[in-house]
């Protein structure tokens, strides 16, 4: 099947359609005994027309499943440490390092050093936490934007926003975007939520993409305060970033 050489150029060219040639039908066309009528066709899922393509798809899946069931090999490298200033986490696999870097040193707030899973969440954080205009406006109008990209809902408080996330976007009631372990304060987590002890915008957690015990009874405040400033020993951060301290406690309002 030889394709005209100009076709590839056309593909790479600008969008556009040909000015259609004039259509002019004769009443005799398609008259009995002839039957042709130009029409679109749709096929439902089980139609035999799809048999070949479906079989190919499933052959591929079978191969995949075979591979998944097998044990993965893990390429190891000589141990090395993260080169970001103040971080001395060690790794022996590139995948882990890649993940670590993107999660902890990726979208980092230059004001408070908190790290976020995405640029979008970082932008929202900066706006809600480090922009005084935001606080002023928030007193008069709905400023807390839904965190789901593409959803245009805004809310008066971060708690309302959280409720919306749970109810409409089916977030788990105790959703989180970082990974603190229950009962400990792992250093490697990314705090994306507001309950740091240095700032706590308006009500509860402004950038509440992480809340540990949403509906559970809040832990005694005293316990939280004790943990408040401790940096777990397994990681070293040299720049005073307070990470991974989660609390649903209300804090004093930000100026």
């Amino acid at each position, binding site marked *: 099947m*030889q394709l005209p050489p100009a076709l590839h150029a056309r593909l790479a060219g600008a*969008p556009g*359609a040909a000015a259609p040639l004039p259509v002019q*039908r004769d009443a005799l066309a398609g008259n009995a005994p002839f039957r*042709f009528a*130009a*029409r679109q066709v*749709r096929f*439902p899922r089980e139609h035999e027309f799809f048999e070949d393509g479906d079989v190919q798809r499933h052959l591929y899946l079978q191969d995949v499943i075979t591979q998944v069931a097998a044990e993965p090999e893990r390429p190891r490298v000589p141990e090395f440490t993260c080169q970001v200033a103040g971080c001395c986490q060690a790794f022996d*696999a590139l995948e882990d390092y890649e993940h670590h870097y993107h999660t902890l040193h990726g979208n980092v707030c230059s004001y408070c050093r908190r790290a976020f899973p995405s640029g979008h969440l970082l932008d929202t954080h900066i706006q809600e936490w480090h922009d005084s205009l935001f606080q002023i406006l928030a007193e008069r109008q709905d400023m807390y934007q839904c965190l789901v990209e593409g959803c245009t809902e805004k809310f008066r408080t971060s708690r309302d926003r959280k409720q919306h996330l749970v109810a409409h976007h089916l977030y788990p009631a105790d959703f989180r975007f970082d990974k603190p372990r229950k009962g400990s304060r792992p250093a490697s987590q990314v705090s994306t939520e507001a309950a740091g002890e240095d700032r706590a915008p308006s009500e509860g957690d402004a950038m509440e993409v992480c809340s540990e015990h949403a509906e559970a009874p809040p832990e005694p405040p005293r316990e939280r305060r004790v943990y408040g400033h401790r940096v777990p020993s397994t990681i070293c951060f040299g720049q005073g970033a307070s990470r991974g301290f989660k609390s649903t406690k209300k804090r004093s309002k930000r100026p």
Partner: protein
Amino acid sequence: MWRGRRGLLRPSGCGVEELRCRRREREAALRKARREQQLVSKRLLRDEATEEAEGGRVVVILGEAQIQEFLRLAQRGIEEKERERALVSLRRGLQHPETQQTFIRLEGSIRTLVGLLTSNKALLQLEAARCLHELSHSEQSAVAEACLPATSYLLTYLSGHSSDFISPHLTVLEALGYALSQLLQAKEAPEKIIPLVLGSTLPQHILQLLQPGPKLNLGVAVEFAWCLHYIICSQVNNALLITQGALTTLGLLLLDLAAAVQRTEDAGLELLVCPVVRCLSNLLTEAAAETVGGPMHLQDERVLAALFILLQFFLHKQPSLLPEGLWLLNNLTANSPSFCTSLISLDLIEPLLHLLSVSNVVSVLVLTVLCNVAEKGPAYCQHLWPGLLLPTLLDTLALSDTEVVGQSVELLQLLFLYQPGAAQAFLQQSGLQALQRHEEVAQLQDRVHALQQTALHG
């Protein structure tokens, strides 16, 4: 799929011929299963595959306490290796349907799994994704329903990383897409699951994952394209998908794929081309797709260029997919003078004719598309004539397949009607003799006689 972990697994001591034979057997088994409406049976997918992989290893059934322990270790173990090992043990157990059932009935188990899927430890994420993969094989629809809310959250989480996808995320995404595709094939999917999916933000996420560009990942796109296909061909609410830009996204993706097949003979692209073609083709039949001039209206002749490049690709790589590509071509041209004109102006008629020798099914479709063009009148037929069309049609009349001959006869009738000199040329080339052998065939005789009359008497 499972990039970085791909490697052709072969049972030891297998020659190439034996592998081919094995593959033919698998193919035959799948065809049989599909005809018996059993292709979505996950057991079928598993049994074939794990036989090869496990080689007789016994799968352990895990009880509630054991599952809880593994989950606890995975979540809270101190040592990473310990956490990993716990997940590996869990995954092995999940290969058994009983373990799957116990798992989903255990409170908080899915939630813990979701937590691990979004953890910041790459290896845990990967192992959790494999667990999800295993769970997808559960025969219980309860699993599917348990996973659905998690899917929405997971996609939101993962979409947030779209600017810097890293491999654990991609693997989780693929596993998610695969799980979702299994879910969508359930018998009750059109009534229960698809409406739920359409009412959530999932379609938007899926379309986002299918956006062409540097961020497009083949493995992920394949899974979600198939998800979209299952949604669309169930015909629950395709108009909604069109308003969300599905036609535009899929059209652009088609262009991207055509460009890709030119750059590389990469095996695997047809895995994505197939569902994209199906989605586009079915969506085009929706009333909402026809709003001419609206932003949803697919009106870009580059789509035609892309499709032919892909047809050529199918011809070399996967001829069994030619009918699907031609089906899309039919749906593009049937009601569109513009696309029919493009077919002519881009010089695609002759390449189309070259496909006539592939198979009967392909021939019928090619002839149908040619009829789509011819039925629009003299201005169109003028461009179909003379060229290779007449000799080609005379060749097809020499075949015995009733449908092929029938469609050839229909095309000839249109040409006689709209193209002066066509009937004459036909007679001169012994067309009547070619028609004679079909005079007694029940489905053809009326049309054959009518055509003979037209040719002789105008």
